[in-house]
Each structure stands twice: as structure tokens, then as C-alpha cells.
């Protein structure tokens, strides 16, 4: 087939899912001429699975994407139909925002953001191969024969790459939601020597809301006071829908057990590795036989449709079995289904083949993001897309990579885990993965990251000014509360009202706020002169004062952590030639090629003794004339 040259770009992004959209927007905002190619423009920012953004760990990622100047937070703030802060009764480190999205609106708003963006071109087209010269990617070939030259490429192929759908005994090549898969590109990448592996994920059936008995389920309402995802928004719209909770029962489980061999998974059709934290219902029933019931959540897919998503019940069973077990559930007895659940297998790489800037170690200029790197989830994908887009643009500019470490952001934890430890199953973010959770809160993502985003040319001037104002307000209010003192008599009525002992001596408002029982708002009665602050600032003033001791302790841990992160390892270190390091550790180090001593310490199979020997070799090398 005849090939022909089309325009040349600085950055071309392959895929316009949650990773591709952020990558394209970030690169364009940083001044790179950017092309985003999608196999199907109706699939831009498609929420192929659950209609929600955020959750534990994930909500923090969205706030960080926003703080750096990404798009996800702005779009969900425009398109959410219900919003909740999870873990509100627990500590601030685990407060996690989560919102139900109107899927169609989310797609439209994100697509519009790409269309609006200066320096960005969004196009439909199927990429079938990379163009690589001298170990460096320099363009892409499309199915039509079109060639787009590029100085950097971001691969964000999601579940489209080599996609194969499974439903019971039936299986066929397909991307998500019936869109076409990217089969030719998968073949081409294999031919280029990229070691691809198969992962799988799954989704439940969709049903019509009017066919469900909501009165037999438990209603889950949104929060009365909504915390916006974006730091640009002081307030956002309101809740428009409720979700519903119901449970599986013994009959459901019996139907699943009787038909287990008809599932694609247990019938042996699926070879890909699925995530344990996103188990199909047949997995749940099979692995936890003692559980009498499993929860499921009915989530509306949007305002312009009657379809609802049956969260917690993904499956690879045949359609007839699906119908029967879903209908055995209270409230779903007469359910009418619009789409059946299915599993999907796709190609991805071993993320150990990437540097921390998400650039491929063997093909220079090739950046990778999202499910292609072995992660799962919209938020995880978007976070990597943003970082891949930033680093692609930096490469074009000839500037040093932008890397966030584990003490700066969940984004840093995510990428460090992927490129240092690798993955054996699709990777999901959790707060338990972050060592410095109390520092990496959802409320302070702007304080941690907006300065950096602005310096990159990614965060806008407007965003930067909002951040500066918020920072100043927070600091001034903390200072004021520290300086404002109360006598025991002043505080007595408040303390007595809360059943607390009176003060022995004078105390500052900040000291009072440190008591677990007293919140910022409760102090208002003793503090008539306080400034009128917005909810976000009030919350973070309270958190920073209340948890000061813990935060300070964590800061010391972070300093120790940083001292190892700052100790850089040369890229050309020949680990295999270093004596005194055990061979398993040598091989691992040689594969990961860590950028710092800290990262080397996290490589599995590297012992403290190996690390000490590595330090000696490093010193020897430095000592060389």
C-alpha cells in the first residue's frame, strides 16, 4: 500500500481515552504542536466501565492532575450528577472525593476541551505501526497509508490494543463497548520486539432503571456540601441522582456455582491476568465461599438515559446465566437488560521497560501511559497520561524530565511502583500504597503541585493566582489562630458544652483546635473576629493545625527518604559488572536501571547489603579522576 506524508508534529498521542486526552492537552498547553489520534472519535474519554470518577487513592490522583493543570477535575466538576466525600468520618489523610458522572456529558466535555485547545489537533485514525530510526521514534503509520512525523510519541492504547471480548463460550476481537480493536498495531509492536503481555478486565451488565424496584434497595444520597474536584472551582452544581445498594443472596451464588464452567474465566478461555481487586462475581463467589452475600450498587449512567450500571457484579458468564443471577437479587427481579456484562483481554507492556519519565528504555522518544503500562482505572490512566504528555513536551524542548517522587504526590507513588516494582496484575491506586499519606492529602494537592505545574507552563496564570491566594489565606489564618489566646474562663462554656475539662491556663485557639473533639467551625463562638473563609480553606487550616505533630514527624521521614532519592545513579552504570552484589540483585538492577539509590532500594530482590555495596561502587566511581 502506498504511504504518504501528512503534517509533522512535535508530539503525537495514540489513543484518546483518559490517558491520551490528558497527554495531548498537557503537551499542547506546554507549547508542543500536538496531534491526538483516536480510532473512533465517539470513544474520546469513554467511561467504558463504571460511571464514576474518584474514590480512595483515586480521588487524590484527580486532585493532583488538576493542581498541575490537567483537565479531569474540571470535566467531572461540570458533568457530575452525584458527589460524595468518602471516609469523611475518618482522618483527613483518607478523605477521598468520588463523583458519579453523566457518561455522555463527560465524553462531550472532554472532547470539546481537546477541540478548543490551541496547538492541538484531534483526529480519527487507526495507527498500525511506529516509525523508528536509530532507536528513536520519529513518526506513525496509519491504516490509510498516512504518515505523521513526530518528535515524540505517547502510546495510550488502553483496552483497544489487541482487544478481545469474552462472554461465556463466545469470544471475538473487539475494543470496549463494541468499538473496533487496534489489532494491527499490537502485531507491529510485537514485531518490533516489545514484549507484550495479556491483562484482562471486566464490566457488568447495564439495565433500565424503570425495570428495577428501587423501593426494595437502600438509597445512597450525595453529600449536602459538595467539595469540587478542581481547585479552580469554589463551588459546583448539585446532586441530581441517588445510587442504590442491594445484595446478592444464596440463590444468586447457587446459580453462579451451577454454571461456573460456562464462564469464560472458569471455562479456561481467558488467559489474561485480571485484577484481584476488581473481581468478577464468579471470582467473588468462588474465592470467598463463606460470604453469604456481596454488595452491589446501582449507579445511573447519565441524565439523558435510563440505563444504570450494576457495580460490583462484573462477569464473563453467558447472557442467559447473567440474566438469571441478576434477577435473583432483591430489587432486580424484573430487570430488563440493555447490555450484557463481558470480560476484555488486551495487550500491555511490562512497565519495568520504562524510565520514571514514562519513556521507553529501548525506543527513545516513545512515552507510554495508562492501561498500556499495566494499570487500571480512569484516574490512574489520566495521571500517567498527564506525566507522559509533560515529559514528551519536555523532550521536544530539550529539557530535563519532570518526575514526582513518592513524597510529593500519589502520581509519584503510582509511577514509581510501576517502573520499579513492575506489575503482575492490573495496578489500582490505594491509599495503603502511599508511605506519606498524611502529607499527600486531597485538600492540599494545589499547595504541593500548582507551583510546579505553573513552572512547566502547564497550569494557567489564573490557576496560579488562585493558588497563591489560597496559600496566603491558609498561612495567615494559621498564624492568626496561633497568636489568638483565650483565658480558661473564655473557653469554659465551649469545653463544658462538649463535656471536656476546663483549661488549666491560657491557651491559643490553635491549641484548642488540636483536641480531637473540637473543629474549626465549633471554635466560631470563641472567635468573633475570624475572617470569612471558604470551606476548602477552613478545612485545611483545621487539618494543618490538628495534625501538626504527625505532619512534622512525617516531614522528618520525608527528609530521610529524600536524601536517598537525591543520590543519583549514573544511567550507564554496568550493574552486571559490579562485584559483591548478588546475581539476582544485579539482574534486577540492570533491568530497572534506577535513577537514584532510593529507587534501587525499592527494587525487589535488592538487599540492604547489596545496596551498601552499590554505594561503595558509586563512591569508587566518583573518586575516579
Amino acid at each position, binding site marked *: 500500500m502506498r504511504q504518504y506524508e501528512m503534517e509533522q508534529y512535535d508530539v503525537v498521542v495514540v489513543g484518546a481515552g483518559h490517558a491520551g486526552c490528558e497527554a495531548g492537552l498537557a503537551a499542547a498547553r506546554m507549547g508542543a504542536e500536538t496531534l491526538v489520534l483516536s480510532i473512533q472519535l465517539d470513544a474520546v474519554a469513554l467511561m467504558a466501565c*463504571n460511571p464514576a470518577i474518584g474514590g*480512595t*487513592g483515586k480521588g487524590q490522583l484527580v486532585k493532583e492532575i488538576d493542581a498541575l493543570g490537567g483537565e479531569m477535575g474540571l470535566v467531572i466538576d461540570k458533568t457530575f450528577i452525584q458527589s460524595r466525600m*468518602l*471516609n469523611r*468520618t*475518618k*482522618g483527613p*489523610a*483518607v478523605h477521598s472525593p468520588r463523583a458519579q458522572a453523566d457518561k455522555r456529558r463527560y465524553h462531550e466535555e472532554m472532547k470539546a476541551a481537546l477541540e478548543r485547545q490551541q496547538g492541538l489537533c484531534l483526529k480519527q485514525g487507526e495507527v498500525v505501526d511506529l516509525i523508528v530510526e536509530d532507536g528513536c521514534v520519529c513518526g506513525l503509520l496509519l491504516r490509510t497509508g498516512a504518515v505523521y512525523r513526530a518528535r515524540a510519541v505517547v502510546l495510550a492504547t488502553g483496552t483497544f490494543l489487541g482487544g478481545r471480548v469474552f462472554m461465556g463460550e463466545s469470544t471475538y476481537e473487539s475494543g470496549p463497548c463494541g468499538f473496533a480493536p487496534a489489532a494491527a498495531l499490537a502485531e507491529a509492536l510485537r514485531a518490533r520486539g516489545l514484549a507484550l503481555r495479556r491483562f484482562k478486565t471486566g464490566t457488568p451488565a447495564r439495565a433500565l432503571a424503570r425495570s428495577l424496584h428501587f423501593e426494595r434497595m437502600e438509597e445512597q444520597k450525595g453529600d449536602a456540601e459538595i467539595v469540587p474536584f478542581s481547585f479552580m472551582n469554589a463551588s459546583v452544581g448539585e446532586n441530581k441522582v441517588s445510587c442504590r445498594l442491594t445484595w446478592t443472596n444464596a440463590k444468586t451464588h447457587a446459580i453462579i456455582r451451577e454454571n461456573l464452567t460456562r464462564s469464560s474465566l472458569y471455562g479456561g478461555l481467558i488467559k489474561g491476568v485480571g*485484577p*484481584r*481487586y*476488581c*473481581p468478577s462475581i464468579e471470582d*467473588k463467589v468462588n*474465592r*470467598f465461599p463463606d*460470604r453469604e452475600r*456481596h*454488595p452491589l*450498587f446501582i449507579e445511573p449512567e447519565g441524565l439523558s438515559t435510563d440505563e444504570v450500571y450494576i*457495580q*460490583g457484579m*462484573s462477569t464473563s458468564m453467558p447472557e442467559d446465566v447473567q440474566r438469571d443471577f441478576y434477577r435473583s437479587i432483591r430489587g432486580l427481579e424484573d430487570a430488563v437488560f440493555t447490555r450484557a456484562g463481558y470480560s476484555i483481554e488486551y495487550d500491555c507492556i511490562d512497565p519495568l521497560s520504562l524510565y520514571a519519565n514514562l519513556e521507553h528504555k529501548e525506543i527513545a522518544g516513545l512515552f507510554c501511559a495508562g492501561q498500556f503500562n499495566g494499570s487500571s482505572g480512569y484516574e490512574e490512566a489520566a495521571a500517567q497520561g498527564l506525566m507522559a504528555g509533560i515529559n514528551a513536551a519536555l523532550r521536544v524542548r530539550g529539557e530535563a524530565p519532570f518526575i514526582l517522587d513518592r513524597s510529593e504526590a500519589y502520581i509519584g507513588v503510582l509511577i514509581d511502583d510501576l517502573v520499579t516494582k513492575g506489575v503482575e496484575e492490573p495496578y489500582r491506586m*490505594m*491509599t*495503603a*500504597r502511599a508511605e506519606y*499519606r*498524611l502529607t499527600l492529602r486531597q485538600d492540599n494537592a494545589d499547595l504541593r503541585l500548582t507551583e510546579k505545574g505553573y513552572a512547566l507552563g502547564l497550569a494557567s496564570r489564573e490557576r496560579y493566582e488562585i493558588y497563591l491566594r489560597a496559600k496566603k489565606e491558609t498561612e495567615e489564618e494559621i498564624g492568626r489562630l496561633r497568636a489568638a489566646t483565650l483565658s480558661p474562663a473564655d473557653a469554659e462554656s465551649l469545653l463544658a458544652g462538649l463535656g471536656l475539662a476546663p483549661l488549666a491556663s491560657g491557651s491559643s485557639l490553635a491549641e484548642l483546635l488540636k483536641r*480531637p*473533639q473540637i473543629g474549626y467551625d465549633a471554635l466560631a463562638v470563641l472567635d468573633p473576629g475570624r475572617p470569612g473563609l471558604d470551606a476548602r480553606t477552613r478545612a485545611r487550616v483545621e487539618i494543618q493545625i490538628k*495534625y501538626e505533630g*504527625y505532619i512534622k514527624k512525617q516531614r522528618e521521614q520525608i527528609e*530521610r527518604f529524600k*536524601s*536517598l532519592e537525591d543520590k543519583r545513579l549514573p544511567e550507564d552504570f554496568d550493574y552486571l559488572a559490579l*562485584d*559483591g552484589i*548478588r546475581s539476582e540483585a544485579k539482574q534486577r538492577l540492570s533491568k530497572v536501571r534506577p535513577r537514584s539509590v532510593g529507587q534501587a532500594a525499592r527494587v*525487589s*530482590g535488592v*538487599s*540492604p*547489603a547489596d545496596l*551498601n*555495596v552499590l*554505594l*561503595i*561502587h558509586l*563512591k*569508587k566511581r566518583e*573518586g575516579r579522576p
Partner: protein
Amino acid sequence: MNDTVAAISTPPGEGGIGVIRISGAGSRAVLERLFRPGKGGGRARDAAVCFRDRHMRYGRIVDPKSGSVIDEVLAVFMAAPRSYTGEDVAEIHCHGSAAALRRALALTLREGARLAEAGEFTKRAFLNGRLDLAQAEAVIDLIQAKADTTFDAAIRQLDGSLSRAVKNLRDRVTELLVRVAADLDYPEEDVGALSPRDLCESLSSIGDEIEKLSATAHAGRIVREGLRVVIAGKPNVGKSSLLNALLRESRAIVTDVPGTTRDLIEEGVHLRGLPVRLTDTAGIRETADPVESLGVAGSLNAIARSDLVLLVLDASAPLDAADAHVLRQIANRRFVVILNKCDLPARVDADAARAFAAASAAAAGGTEGPLAVVGASMRDGTGLPALEDVIESFVFPGRTLPAADAFVTNVRHADLLARASAELREGLATAERGETADLTEINLRRAWELLGEITGETAGADIVEEIFARFCLGK
């Protein structure tokens, strides 16, 4: 990186002296917290001292909490960079008793140092430019070789009951941690969140178990090396008879002539399965006989090195200045009074003996009276079972022997257990203050890691893995 580390840096075994080296920015502070100058007489809590760079001082290592003297030492501080490691270094030269050396090391760990890793001093020396490049290879060999032997030793130590005990404790921490962590990451699912009360109860119960195991660090050494028991008393009160009764054979010569036993007699014996090194001393009295006075000096030395002294008094004669003289010599030791010759008409009862012993010891600066007063007769064996009870409960206080006889015998393990238990205590305090579980989780996780360092399970293991193995979670 440059935290303060400490280790015994002389070879194991009984040498003339043993050296504890402390390196890092906090080494001076650690030394100054433990060192008291001079002999100190009877009073252990003297003013602290400021060390001058590279000046050796004579004094004692004193436990700042209890005030008890660990050893007579020479100590020196060398400021960075003029030291072996190139950092601030303190060295404590102990008298060479393995027990004293270990106890002194344990104090440095309690006062802020961390136990040095294999080859760590040499590594620091190299990284600070104190060794030349040619020595680098040797350092590498040293690190790996030491890591291997330490590992072997750790494994050997761990096969068996200690390993099981720590593993069991760690499993309980894991269970707790996983429940807390799963609830934090899956708030909408049915994890069965812990109530604050259950969390506190679990924390406190696991903490207690760890402390019980920690308490065996003392018993562990005794199990390995034997309990050093010295029999003391004025001449002819029945010391040798007591030794014979405990040995159940006639090893010492028993006569009615005062001063018969002039040499120290040391015997190994198992009491209730516990190895005991029994030393019968020459009667302690002021004497002009040069041979006998040598024996007395030997006795005093044995007393100084003992874990426990059995003081024999004669119940059939009034207590006198000679008894008081012996009591003065043992005032700073833990001791049991054996009120011998109970078969004869009594002139002294248990209460009188206790009061006399306590008063005499206190007059000599002793802080504690007798552990117990046991009425006995060596002629018919009366009181021996009671004495064995006392010795046993001295080694295992409260008779709370951990299940399956797990003992902590290694300073590293004791250090890790102490730190784990401190984390749990802090977590408990946090939870009791009414703070949320995510804060307690920080301490739980740290304790989990520390216990894992004992069993070697931290590396590679992941609490996230555990969560999914134990709970059915996800959407």
C-alpha cells in the same frame, strides 16, 4: 543516612576489654547520657559530664533510668572528621564481661542509637573518604561476608520457638493492620470495621505480648550462659552445705572450722531445667591471714559478676557485725537470704532477718532489700524447694513463661521488639485520645515492619497483597 549507630566492635568471647563503638551525629549525646565520671562510691546518679574531643575518661556506664551501674569503663569521644568513620564517634571500653558489654550496648540503643548493620562502620569510613580506593574491595567483601554470617546466625537463632512466637505476634499485627487498611481503602464495602474499643484492646494485648517476649531478653541470656549464683556469708554459717545440697553431692569440704573453704568452687547445675553456675565463696571477713584474704578478694570479685547472691545467715545465733560486713559487700546485688539451721533452736526469725538485711544493705547504699527470706536446714533439706522457687521466679518474673519457651537472646532482636512495642504503645495512645484509625495505622504498619525484620519477612511482602488475600473487595 547518617543516623547514629552502635555495635560491639571487638570480637565475641571473653577478652580483656570489649569496645562499643557509636558513630553518627548523636554519638556524643548517647555517650554523655550513659557515662558518669570516677568511681562514684555508693551513689550512682552523679552529674553528667561533657566530653572533650579525643580525651579518654575513666568512669562508669550507668543506666539513667534505674541508676544501676553496668560496668567500669574508659570512654572517649572523637569529633568528626578525625575518627575511624569520619563522623562523630564515641567509644566505650568495657571490662570484657560479655554480659556487661551487651547491657551497655542495649543502653546505647535505648538512648537513641540504632544497631549498626554488618560492615556499617567500615562502609561509613569509606563513604566519608577515610579509606583509600584500594580498600573498597575489601569493604565489599566484608559487607557481604558479614551479611551472610549475620543471616546464618539469625536463621539459626530463629529456628524454633522464638521465630514462632514473633511470627505469631506479627500475624496478629497483620490481621489488625489489614482490617484497618481495608476499611480505609474500601469504606463502602462490608469489611467489618473495628470499633475504636476493639482496636485499643487488640493494640494493648499485642503490645503486652511483645513486652513479655522482650522481658525474656534477660532470661534468654541466662538460658544461654547460665545464671551466675554466688553463695556468700560469714564463715561457718553453712555455705558449703548449701552448695552440697544444691549439687546433691559432697563437692565442698564441710567442717566446723571457720574458713575451711579458701578457694572458689564453681559448679554447673540445672535447677528446674535452668542452667546455673554456682560459686561457693570463702567466708567473707576481715582477716590477717594472707592466704585467706586472697580468697576473700576472689569472693568479692565473684559477687561483683553475679546475677544473684544467696546470703546464708545462721538462725541459731544472733546476727552480728560479721553478717553486716558481708551484707555491705553484696548491698548492690540482687540477693536472697537463706536462714540456715532452722532445725536448731531459733534466735533469729524471718522478719528479723529481713529487717537486718534490708537495713545493712541500705546503710551500704543498696537500693533494694532481699528478694526473699527462705528458712532452711541443710541437714534435712528443708527450704530447698522454696529456694528453687525463688530462683526460678527471679529469672522468669511472675512465672509468665512465654509459650513454648521462646527467649530473646540477641540484642538486635531485643532492639527490634522494643521498638515495635513502642510503636504499638504510641498507636494505642493515639487511639485512646480519640484520633481516627488512619493515624493509628501509621504505628501499626511500622510495628509490622519491625517485627518482619526479625523474621526476615518485610522484604517483598506487601500489605496490599494481604488485604486482597483476606477480603473480598472491589467492584
